[in-house]
């Protein structure tokens, strides 16, 4: 398991691959597109730019979006230029098990939706039991033991949540 740290990439000396540049440019391109759409479609927001001494509610969003757009464009140009000249060499996009991450994300969204239907604690029990059992089975290859581990952890976690959050902190989870 990789270690989470508050910083990343220390000690890596190789230059970044142009693929990373393109990825960064696309990410910020999407952010800028969404941002510009929201700002430009807000008539009251844009009108606030002409509101006397106050530079207006749109002032800083426009400044920040402009800078981000320039930055994203420059990174995109740099990425294309480097890709054409030197190919894909260098440190590329971080590897990861994207399938498991996507499955976890979807199940977390389902947990949120399911909490509204069957209640938070039952939904959490199903979520934690299923995930623990699946991960345990992948690690050990022993399905019965994995199911037992899942059930025990699911029950223990729900008990902890009930005692800590529902009984003591009065968070309406139940």
């Amino acid at each position, binding site marked *: *398991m*990789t*270690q*989470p*740290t*508050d*910083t*990343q*990439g*220390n000690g890596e000396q190789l230059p970044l691959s142009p693929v*990373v540049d393109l*990825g*960064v440019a696309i*990410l*910020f391109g999407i*952010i800028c597109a*969404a*941002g510009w759409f*929201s*700002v430009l479609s*807000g008539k009251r*927001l844009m009108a*606030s730019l002409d509101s006397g*001494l*106050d*530079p207006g509610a749109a*002032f*800083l*969003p426009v400044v*920040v*979006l402009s800078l*981000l757009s320039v*930055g994203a464009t420059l990174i995109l140009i740099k990425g294309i230029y480097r890709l054409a000249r030197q190919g894909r060499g260098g440190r590329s996009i*971080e590897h*990861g*098990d*994207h*399938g498991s*991450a996507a499955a*976890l*994300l979807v199940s*977390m*969204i389902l947990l*949120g939706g399911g909490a*509204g239907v069957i209640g*938070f604690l039952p939904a*959490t029990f199903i*979520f934690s039991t299923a*995930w623990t059992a*699946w*991960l345990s089975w992948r690690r*050990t290859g022993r399905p019965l033991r994995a199911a037992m581990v899942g059930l025990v*952890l699911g029950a223990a*976690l729900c008990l902890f949540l009930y005692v*800590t*959050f529902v009984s003591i*902190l*009065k*968070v*309406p989870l139940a």
Partner: protein
Amino acid sequence: MLTDFLAALGTTLLSPWGLVLAVIGTLLGILLGAMPGVSSTMALAILLPISFGMDPHLAILFLLTVFVASVYGGSVTAILINIPGTPGSIVTQLDGYPMARSGRAGQALTYALVSSTLGGLIGLVALVLVAPLLAAAAMKFRSPEFTAVAVFGLVLLAYASPGSTIRGMMVGGFGLLCGMVGFDKLTDIPRFTFDSTALQGGIELVPLCVGLFGFAEVLKNVGAAGRSSAKGVMPTIGKIWPPMKELLSHWKTMLRGSLIGAGVGAIPAAGSAIAVAIAYAQEMRFSKRPEKFGTGVSEGVVAPESANSSSIGGTLIPMMTLGIPGDAITAVLMGSLLIHGLRPGPGLFTSNPEFVSGVYSSFFLALILTLIVGLLLMRWVAWVTRIPSHILMVVIAVLCVVGSFAIRNTMDDVYIMLAFGVIGYLLNLLRLPAAPLAFGLILGPLLEENLRRSLILGRGSWEIFIDSPIALTLLLMSAGAILLPLVAPWFVRLRNDLRRTYR
């Protein structure tokens, strides 16, 4: 000053709830910090919701004990299984792990614990001495100065982030945009809400931090957690106490490391990782046996551990006095204060001096309790490093959901947390730092409010920033920090050309 500190300490010690919470916080901090894969930031982020219902004094006491104890917990994994639990313990493993392999794991942990405590105390002294002076100076600040402080903080925080400064600043810019989501405070005009009611209330710092530092880590590690891995052999703890003479002989090393830690930690975003690296390098320079470093010498544990712990006090200085988080962990801590209606900054020292004294006494208590609990539970804490990562991942994922829900009892915050978890995952894939996003969210409102107020005061003229020497200096320093990475390669090339020419 001392009277207020002692009074606050006495109040905490005489409050049974306060003591119980402090002990629980210390235990949880050490245990979570010692779990492979749980950083201090993650520990604080997932335990933050527990503090919501508490009195602000108790909340900060609980969180500071978790913070301080998790820093020591991070060193446990570094020493016993060669995996740094926190960025600050990266250097500790260089000599800590070889010490453990040679049968001196207990002694390495005691060195770490004692030097952490002493380092933390020196960091606390730095905080107590410097913070009021800086806060008094900051009381003279008006809107132009605060605008410049926010710009400077944001640039510096992005500058110190790993990787490209410009990219760090772009992530910070995205954080600024996130801080603008919701209704504008001056005009009540909605911004970046996309007609969604979930976004009209703005983005809270806690779901952002929980998503970015908690859930994103789970997404990153869940695949690997499901793979069978070879079980590492944990070294035996052995004797806990090193010879007292040897322990005491390291006082100069502890002092040097602590001073470096407090000084570096006080620079916004410099963080503990830089502090420990400098402390280790300095200790090698002062040592009579530098060639032995990396083979299991005790100075190699003492120097970085004292710097690591004293940097906590340092990082609290800009947070408490200027409202600028020193690093990602203090950003999470700041989120807790904001939830309790306490805005860190110079005003806190005049409007709520008892709270400031409470922070000092809580920090002191956290250090002492970490020493006591750490020594008492040393042999048992070592077992925590064996908890399977897949169980941890599931528990942390559920706590991320509960923590986000508990802020306002709404699922909207859970979905915001999930969104920032995905953003954190993408930032990691693209090798971008995540922390500037949180810094942008914190500093965004401070920047916008003061920028607009300054321009109103200056009747629309930007000269108001030139007329203030402090604002001008800070803005010039910010410009320098932005330009430096752009012009530095050019200067290096020019220098190399000149060398070749005159050789």
